């Protein structure tokens, strides 16, 4: 009670300052008068009485200060005064203020922006209910396309029965279909889900309902749940959508709800539907085929079960599965299952890049802070005299420290404010980067927590800066004043600190530059990778016409479905041919070819493959190859070089013998040193049972060159091409080679396609050049960001070196004057100062190169074609830093050499 009451009285005291001051003055005056009167009564002269009374009072002003401290919240009063003082002081040194604020703004802005991305993509809790209980299961195997091969229904059943720690399991099968609108059609990604899916995932609808177990099985009405993004994009957030019918391929589905915003993994989803739209998913083939892996698995851990328990249970179940079903797990391919917390899985592609960027930003912050610290130290030395005078006039060390703190807070918070401006712009840029790596990029916000991060950073920095400055020790004021102190070099401790900071700046800049250099070299290496295509002026357009599922009027009988698919395929091929004939007549078009997939993009379909008369060694992985089809003109239209034999011809028709063209990688694998033409290969493996692809022998008629499918840094994949007419059309891609700018024919081409197939979606209208640029874009942005951090760091460090040397020169003006009058010429003085800076620069370079040697190991995963300790990069970085550093030393050195001894000597 007593404290609360006293506290309230104090707070009230803040507001009644003026009246209280008047009263206090009157009260003390009365005291004084009474004492004087008493003294006079005792027989003193009035003057003596007054003198004695004043002496006894101990100083009215000091007493009034003491009472004021007791009365209100003294720190508030004096802080306001400090703030006024700080604003005035900073206004008096605009250059210092500007440099500090800009430096801090850059450092804080970069950190804020990148932290907001790190938080959204890696740290923030998932929007799913108890999202930290979700784990993603990933089955993978060796070889291209083996990183994530999904699960089959029997495998999921085994885990459900054998791993109780997994609690409940949500399955979804990535599928796609053509959504037909009023006057257009688009291809959308649909997840086929079981009824318990949303319950397990912990996701709720924001409109309508989600699926439930009664939506499982055959014979139920087909329903669709829209994801939030797709609902906004396609339906403009129309809340009347629930209950409406939409057409997906041949099916009519009822939209039953819209899902809350949530990230998808491993692929983006537009909508979720129950399994009934795909008869295949309900067929015995799917439900019993152990190798028919097309379902992703996310589990919610059982209450109190840990990820470690889940891992060990999954491992033992998987071991048993591999023992019981040897044919489904070829030992050479090293099948394995990983249990990954869902949040980690969502962030895994972004993690390394983001932490590298965060580290780079932190480095920039360290350099900025060092620079600001140096500037503050120098300013502190210039103000030493002021501080001593203030201390002598009664300011305690604590009070001075607070004055500095207020000043530094003003600086860092202004810097932070400006930094937020930079961050707002930076976040937009970074979101574009993060979208390529993470499904959570749309969660990036400059929200309260990010602002708190920025604020804490600014305050911590201000405190650090305030305690760095040394203040006159209590009791030393009198001596200093008596000595008329006006030293400007500061004490040796401070100089050492300043020099240490410069060395640190140079060292950190070197580390950053090394990272930037390596990433830039990676970019250069990647852009020089040969795509394998002869021309970049090739336009590619994806026009999926084939309907693989839910063809109207079919039941769940597989044979009937298959017949419908074949009909759809035949109709599609007629249209492709018509499109080809019309496009080839366009001016500027040299050649047009049709195929199942786009050059330079990874094929989604790959199967096990075998060569006649060739057996695989024991323990070697079963060879796999990408499945692609090509019309006769495809190779030359796409610019894929023919190395041996022939390409496809019109004679390789539907009824003709099955022939294939393989790529160099597959040829080297099966027929090293032999001519593959005339040899035979065949698709193989259990999984063929689930596809319309026949396992018969096919004769190799030609070999084509390798192309960089799936990225410039992707390993080369073995590919088998089949005649377009002999297999299903799949996604359907038209490649168009032109004699000029391929992009310019795109509008006309799109128009023709739309006229021939009005209901077909037209996707990925891109030139080969654009595909290549797109695959390099995230790395380019990444390298550009780290490089700009590196350049920023070097510039700030250069300012740091120049500043410290200039300061040293101005402090040593007298000394230099004396040296010159004793015979040192300006060249010698210049060398002296250059030497002083050179030592710092060398030290920084050595520390930096050693640091970079260790630091660059962490970015190994982001490099391509260049080693983490690439000597060329390191030498280049050291030379660059040295060059900038020497220029930074030069200016103060030249200034020192221009000192006129006559003038300086006079002012000693």
């Amino acid at each position, binding site marked *: 009670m007593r404290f609360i009451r006293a506290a309230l009285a104090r707070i009230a005291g803040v507001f009644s300052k003026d009246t209280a001051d008047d009263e206090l003055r009157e009260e003390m005056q*009365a005291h004084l008068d*009474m004492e004087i009167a*008493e003294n006079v009564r005792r027989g003193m002269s009035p003057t003596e009485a007054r003198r004695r009374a004043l002496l006894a009072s101990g100083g009215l002003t000091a007493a009034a200060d003491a009472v004021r401290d007791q009365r209100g919240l003294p720190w508030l009063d004096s802080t306001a005064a400090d703030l006024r003082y700080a604003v005035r002081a900073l206004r008096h040194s605009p250059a210092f203020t500007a440099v500090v604020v800009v430096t801090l703004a850059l450092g804080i802005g970069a950190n804020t922006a990148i932290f907001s991305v790190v938080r959204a993509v890696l740290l923030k809790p998932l929007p799913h209910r108890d999202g930290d209980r979700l784990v993603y299961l990933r089955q993978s195997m060796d070889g291209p396309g083996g990183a994530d091969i999904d699960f089959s229904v029997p495998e999921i059943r085994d885990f459900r029965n054998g791993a109780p720690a997994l609690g409940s399991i949500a399955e979804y099968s990535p599928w796609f279909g053509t959504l037909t609108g009023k006057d257009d059609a688009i291809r959308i990604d649909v997840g086929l889900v079981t009824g318990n899916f949303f319950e397990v995932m912990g996701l709720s609808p924001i409109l309508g309902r989600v699926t439930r177990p009664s939506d499982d099985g055959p014979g139920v009405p087909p329903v669709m749940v829209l994801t939030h993004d797709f609902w906004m994009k396609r339906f403009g957030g129309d809340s009347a959508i629930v209950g409406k019918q939409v057409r997906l391929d041949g099916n009519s589905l009822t939209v039953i709800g819209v899902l809350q915003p949530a990230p998808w993994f491993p692929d983006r989803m537009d909508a979720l539907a129950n399994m009934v739209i795909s008869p295949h998913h309900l067929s015995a083939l799917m439900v019993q085929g152990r190798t028919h892996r097309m379902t992703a698995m996310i589990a919610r851990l059982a209450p109190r079960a840990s990820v470690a328990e889940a891992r060990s249970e999954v491992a033992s179940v998987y071991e048993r599965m591999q023992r019981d079903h040897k044919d489904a797990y070829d030992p050479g391919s090293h099948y394995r299952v990983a249990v990954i917390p869902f949040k980690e899985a969502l962030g895994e592609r972004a993690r390394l890049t983001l932490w590298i960027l965060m580290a780079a930003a932190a480095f920039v912050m360290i350099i900025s802070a060092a620079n600001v610290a140096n500037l503050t130290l120098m300013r502190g030395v210039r103000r030493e005299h002021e501080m001593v005078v203030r201390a002598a006039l009664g300011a305690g060390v604590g009070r001075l420290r607070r004055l500095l703190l207020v000043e530094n807070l003003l600086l860092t918070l202004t810097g932070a404010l400006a930094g937020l401006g930079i961050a707002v712009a930076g976040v937009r840029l970074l979101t574009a980067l993060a979208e390529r790596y993470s499904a959570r990029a749309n969660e990036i916000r400059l929200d309260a927590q990010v602002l708190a991060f920025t604020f804490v950073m600014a305050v911590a920095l201000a405190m650090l800066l305030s305690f760095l400055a040394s203040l006159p020790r209590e009791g030393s004021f009198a001596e200093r004043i008596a000595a008329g102190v006006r030293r400007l070099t500061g004490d040796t401790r401070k100089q050492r600190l300043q020099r240490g900071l410069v060395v640190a700046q140079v060292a950190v800049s070197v580390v950053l530059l090394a990272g930037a250099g390596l990433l830039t070299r990676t970019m250069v290496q990647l852009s020089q990778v040969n795509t394998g295509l002869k021309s970049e002026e090739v336009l590619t357009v994806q026009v999926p016409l084939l309907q693989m599922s839910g063809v109207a009027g079919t039941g769940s009988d597989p044979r009937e479905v298959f017949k419908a698919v074949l009909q759809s395929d035949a109709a599609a091929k007629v249209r492709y041919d018509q499109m080809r004939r019309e496009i080839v007549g366009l001016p500027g078009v040299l050649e047009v070819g049709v195929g199942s997939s786009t050059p330079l993009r990874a094929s989604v379909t790959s199967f096990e493959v075998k060569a006649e008369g060739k057996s695989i060694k024991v323990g070697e992985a079963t060879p796999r190859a990408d499945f692609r089809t090509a019309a006769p003109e495809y190779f030359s239209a796409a610019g894929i070089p023919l190395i041996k034999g022939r390409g496809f011809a019109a004679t390789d028709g539907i009824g003709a013998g099955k022939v294939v063209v393989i790529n160099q990688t597959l040829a080297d694998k099966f027929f090293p040193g032999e001519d593959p033409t005339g040899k035979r290969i065949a698709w193989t493996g259990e999984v063929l049972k689930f596809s319309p692809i026949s396992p018969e022998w096919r004769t190799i008629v030609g070999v084509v060159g390798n192309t960089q499918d799936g990225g410039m840094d992707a390993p080369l994949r073995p590919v088998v091409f089949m005649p377009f007419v002999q297999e299903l059309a799949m996604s359907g891609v038209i490649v168009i080679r032109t004699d000029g700018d391929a992009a310019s024919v795109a509008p006309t081409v799109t128009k023709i396609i739309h006229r021939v197939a009005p209901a077909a979606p037209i996707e990925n209208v891109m030139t080969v050049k654009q595909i290549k640029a797109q695959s390099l874009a995230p790395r380019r942005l990444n390298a550009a960001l780290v490089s700009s951090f590196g350049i920023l760091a070097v510039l700030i460090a250069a300012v740091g070196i120049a500043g410290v040397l200039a300061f040293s020169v101005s402090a040593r003006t007298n000394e230099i004057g004396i040296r010159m009058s004793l015979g040192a010429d300006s060249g010698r003085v210049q060398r002296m100062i250059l030497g002083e800076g050179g030592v710092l620069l060398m030290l920084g370079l050595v520390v930096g190169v050693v640091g970079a040697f260790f630091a660059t190991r962490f970015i190994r995963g982001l490099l391509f074609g260049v080693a983490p300790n690439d000597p060329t990069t390191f030498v280049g970085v050291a030379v660059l830093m040295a060059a900038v550093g020497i220029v930074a030393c030069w200016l103060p050195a030249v200034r020192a050499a221009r000192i006129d001894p006559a003038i300086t000597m006079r002012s000693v």
Partner: protein
Amino acid sequence: MADKLDVKQGTLALMILKTLEGLGPLHGYGIARRIEETSKNRLALNYGTLYPALLKLEQEGFIKAEWRQSENNRRAKFYALTAAGRKQLARETREWHETADLIAAFLAPKREVP
């Protein structure tokens, strides 16, 4: 002045309360004089010590202040003990006695152990 003692933290409040209990409402000068006299001039109270202490007691509600005419017709601020102040005085007096006894016992010459 060198022979005068500084007022120990915490004791001044007790002295002020005791003074006000004995003499009734009193102004700052009166309190200072009284304390100095009682201490036989071993204590010297300057304004910077006295007035913050008075303000603190007032904030804590142990004393209350009022402007009145002084004996020689001058407007002065008079301080008076409140009920809470009386209780506080009793409590602090008791604590002081206890502390004093304790310290005395410690400082007393040790008796020989038989």
